[in-house]
């Protein structure tokens, strides 16, 4: 029903824009990762694998990459542990207050990312809320200084930020479960635990996968929370990339690390998409 002209008019402008402002830049990053920097600080356009060699040989790079993945994995696990039971409670037990509670989960998303990270800094700092509260209650004499400027602070803050993101797809998946399946399971004599593990949980797996991927990928690439709350031990891979693009001025190496990150992220997305297809019944 739509003419060729119509299709061309709706296709061409976004196609051109996306090619120039997304495809070309990603391609450029790919190219940069094979170039190098001369001693006089100019980019040499000769193709080689030196950046990737350096990435593998220098322990600091892949160790930081592994540490970032470990931080992201913890954020993912904690977000799931907080988000899943919450979604389950809202979907199956909240009754009339369901919509209100749903809104309450969304609202923190509207508070600036930066501001929430900063609020955790006021809470965890040595003269912050938590430490003064502990001293006030005579639970400790000296402020606990391991709270701030540590991987712990980064994991806590990122978990706080990504829990609602993890909650959303899980809640959507739970809401889509036909309630008569649950009733059937009960009528046929399954215990509540059996009903949960054999009916509800398997049907919610696509939501869990989407939420988990979201939490992992977005925290893997974060560089602001580590800068603000991480301290030297909380440095993540993106912080190294930022410094390579800034003061250290080695764009090609920075591009190579970014590309490594991109490969991890995209393969994870593809993997979770495959799993999701396997687990979705509809």
């Amino acid at each position, binding site marked *: 029903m739509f003419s060729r002209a119509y299709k061309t008019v*709706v296709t061409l402008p976004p196609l051109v824009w996306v090619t120039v402002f997304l495809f070309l830049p990603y391609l450029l990053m790919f190219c940069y990762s094979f170039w190098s920097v001369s001693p006089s600080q100019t980019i040499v356009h000769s193709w080689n694998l030196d950046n990737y060699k350096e990435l593998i040989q220098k322990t600091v790079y892949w160790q930081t990459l592994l540490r970032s993945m470990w931080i992201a994995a913890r954020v993912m696990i904690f977000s799931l542990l907080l988000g899943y039971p919450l979604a389950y409670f809202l979907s199956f037990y909240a009754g009339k207050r369901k919509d209100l509670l749903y809104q309450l989960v969304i609202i923190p998303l509207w*508070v600036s*990312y*930066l501001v929430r990270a900063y609020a955790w800094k*006021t*809470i965890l700092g040595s003269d912050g809320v938590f430490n003064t509260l502990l001293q006030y209650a005579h639970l400790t004499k000296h402020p606990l200084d391991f709270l701030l400027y540590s991987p712990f602070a980064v994991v806590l803050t990122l978990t706080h930020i990504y829990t609602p993101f993890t909650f959303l797809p899980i809640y959507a998946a739970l809401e889509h479960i036909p309630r008569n399946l649950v*009733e059937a399971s009960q009528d046929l004599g399954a215990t509540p635990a059996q009903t949960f593990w054999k009916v509800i949980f398997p049907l919610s797996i696509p939501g869990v996968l989407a939420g988990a991927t979201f939490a992992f990928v977005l925290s893997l690439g974060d560089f602001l929370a580590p800068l603000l709350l991480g301290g030297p031990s909380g440095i993540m891979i993106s912080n190294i990339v930022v410094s390579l*693009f800034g003061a250290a001025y080695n764009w090609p190496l920075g591009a190579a690390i970014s590309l490594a990150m991109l490969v991890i992220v995209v393969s994870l997305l593809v993997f979770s998409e495959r799993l999701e297809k396997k687990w979705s019944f509809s």
Partner: protein
Amino acid sequence: MELLVSGGMTTSGAPRSRSLLLHAAAVFAFLYLPIVVLVIYSFNGQGVGGFPPRNLTLDWYRILFADIPIWDSVLNSLQVALVAMLIALAFGIPAALALDRAQFPGKPLFRRLVLLPLILPGIITGLSLLMLFNLANVKLSLLTITLGHGTALISVATTEVFAGLQKLDRAQEEASLDLGANYWQTFWAITVPNLKLPIIGAALLIFTLSMDEIAVSFFLIGRDNTLPLEIWGRLRRGITPEINAISTVIFMFSMVTIVLWYRLRMRAESSVAVGEELAEHGKEQI
């Protein structure tokens, strides 16, 4: 709800639902603790730390309202968000139409590419755009930030509008075309009004996401700061309750936006419901 009523669940389900309730309460406390702290300490005379808050004061707000660089950055952010929103809609809506209605070579790649910035860490999109602008010798400014936001947020416009298109009844568009309207007229008279809700929703979402965006802006910043980057710069220099004050103001502003949006949505939904009821009623009459 039915679960609570049905017999098997109430006996063994009660302690389970109670522990779920406790867990939910704990998660809500965790989600809201920083926000509560933020708001309370914006009134704290003692600065950012200490417990309990002492000497409640409005000084931080007074300082904030006299702080010209902050308000300049707010204006910059509003400009960026507005233009980015227009860019994202101008390309995101046709992209959704193309994905829904056209077949062209590379369509799967195009879909993935459009949606990629939504799930990719902002640093990757920001850096690759930085390389592009550097190569093209474009000086970094608010314009480059706007282009970055606009491009990254096409994904939001496309997903929202595409979801709306899936629910759209094509018969109306067909009728309009059969009755002699051209595509342009049909688009404005039928397609857009039917997609009003997803488009407004996308616009509001894009606007707020752009106002808060920092990872992409971080690499594309020129001389003028956006609000998040201005806040970032001050956080690096040390923390002051003035940041709490501006955050509280932004939070209140976002809350008003959400409430307005839901009002709008409720009204639209209830008018649809009313319309359906009238239609049912009409059928009965006939």
